[in-house]
């Protein structure tokens, strides 16, 4: 049981422990290894002696010693002198300077920014954030992504050496750079959320945990940057979307929004998401996360599918097209326009997408088109569209759903 306590403490403290190490020695790889060793020491020692009064100070002290040992051993091997910078008298670590505990938020933000450094690919940013900021073990991240632990270890190792080669620093970027760097952190949190949310099909706890992890991280970011509109927007979007998690699957099958049992939605989360949105929207600057959250909120406010305010949703999609244009946004807009104004208006938006080779290979283009054709009273066209979509999708539940649409139309 204590091991579990040590783990909980670790999940809470790991960004601060890492930050304390990184302030003195900039290499994320070395610091993560030392912090990991301290976490392992905590698991055994706290089990025996109980949790110390100040677990963070304990972890920082042990991790610092391990870091000094590690860097000394490395420099002895390499015969380098530069390690002096780190191998200061142990006291420098044992008694952290007065500013060591200055601001937890500041530490966490710097760590976020380091893990989402522009030199890294998106998957590397995600893996590193889960490991360093969220404090998840390599094994847990590998399990969440369904790859062997060895593969995940390699990705993390590669990511750290990329940071080293890029000279990435644990610090705040210039004011010019900061907005785009924070946008990258939000993208990483959102990607993590989408991966967790869209992969959870009932049975698998691991995936739904990824979505919860993303909400936890975005909540942290929102707390650090309460004035950041898109951090608020992203958190609202995640809360409003994940509120539907329990209703979106049924025994491994996807349940489309139209057929979901809305009493199974998490109304507490919806209320929280709406509250955040109501606070942030009037501020004026409206980014893509806020708009997507606003769309989710309109859905959430309809007690039944039939009462959905499609006109408002199609207007929000039109705004989203201005702020963050993409073929996928156009597809979603086509659905809303089709519902608000009629299938012909929706089809007029979808059909031009077929000129784009990538969209022609995208299953949703054909699924949305088939849906609108079905509404327009063209079952033969709809069957052809559903069939093409079913062949192109790589999602098992979507393929089952699309095949069921084909069978339904063929039977009638």
């Amino acid at each position, binding site marked *: 049981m204590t091991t579990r306590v040590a783990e909980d403490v670790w999940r809470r403290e790991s960004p601060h422990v890492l930050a304390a190490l990184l302030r003195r020695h900039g290499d994320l790889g070395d610091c993560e290894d030392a912090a990991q060793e301290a976490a392992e020491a905590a698991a055994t020692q706290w089990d025996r002696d109980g949790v110390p009064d100040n677990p963070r100070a304990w972890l920082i002290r042990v991790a610092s010693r391990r870091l000094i040992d590690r860097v000394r051993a490395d420099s002895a091997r390499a015969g380098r002198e530069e390690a002096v910078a780190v191998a200061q008298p142990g006291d420098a670590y044992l008694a952290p300077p007065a500013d060591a505990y200055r601001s937890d938020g500041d530490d966490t933000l710097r760590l976020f920014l380091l893990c989402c450094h522009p030199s890294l*690919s*998106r*998957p590397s940013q995600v893996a590193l954030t889960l490991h360093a900021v969220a404090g998840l073990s390599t094994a847990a991240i590998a399990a969440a*992504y*369904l*790859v*062997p632990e060895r*593969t*995940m*270890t*390699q*990705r993390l190792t*590669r990511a750290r050496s990329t940071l080293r080669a890029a000279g990435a620093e644990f610090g705040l970027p210039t004011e010019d750079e900061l907005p785009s760097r924070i946008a990258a952190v939000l993208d990483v949190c959102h990607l993590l959320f989408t991966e967790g*949310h*869209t*992969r*959870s*099909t009932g049975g*698998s706890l691991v*995936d739904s945990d990824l979505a919860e992890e993303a909400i936890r991280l975005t909540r942290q970011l929102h707390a650090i940057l309460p004035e950041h509109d898109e951090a608020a927007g992203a958190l609202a979007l995640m809360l409003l*979307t994940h509120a*539907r998690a329990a209703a*979106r699957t049924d025994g*491994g099958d*996807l349940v*489309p*929004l139209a057929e979901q049992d809305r009493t199974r939605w998490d109304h507490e989360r919806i209320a929280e998401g709406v509250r955040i949105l109501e606070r942030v929207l009037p501020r004026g600057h409206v980014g893509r996360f806020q708009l997507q959250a606003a769309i989710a909120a309109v859905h959430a406010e309809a007690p039944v599918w039939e009462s959905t305010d499609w006109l408002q949703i199609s207007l929000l999609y039109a705004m989203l097209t201005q702020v963050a244009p993409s073929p996928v946004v156009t597809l979603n807009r086509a*659905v809303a326009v089709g519902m608000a104004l009629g299938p012909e208006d929706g089809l007029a938006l979808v059909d031009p997408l077929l000129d784009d080779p990538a969209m022609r290979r995208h299953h*949703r283009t054909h*699924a949305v088109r088939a849906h609108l054709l079905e509404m327009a009273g063209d079952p033969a066209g709809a069957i052809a569209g559903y069939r093409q979509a079913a062949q192109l999708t*790589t*999602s*098992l*539940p*979507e*393929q089952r*759903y699309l095949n069921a649409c084909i069978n339904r139309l063929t039977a009638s």
Partner: protein
Amino acid sequence: MKYVILIHSNPQPWGHPTPDYLPEYQDLPRADRDKLTSEFEKLLGELQENGELVMGEALGAPESSRLYRWDDGKPLVTDGPYSEAKEHLAGFFLIDVESQARAEEITTHFSGPGETVELRPAMWPGGDDQ
């Protein structure tokens, strides 16, 4: 996103790496062969190091396979090969990458003279909201 890269080939005699036993490949000038080989090995090392390669296996000769067909309520087992096709499955790689575009970029480098390389997406248990 996970994909398998399937190598369809017919090395004579059956052997790995398959290009060493393919006339189309062996007919290339030495310098071209060396270039293809070293580029492929470099890519494979890179995929291993950055964690995009999940696994890969070379397969035994088609003649070494056993075929299981259902016959009269029970399996009927015979010796391979599965078909008299010009090419057989010779090996496979499982990759896990960021996008379809990245999978396609990688697969280009798996292709070579005398064999067909197939890229197929793996299905996943989740699905988008709609």
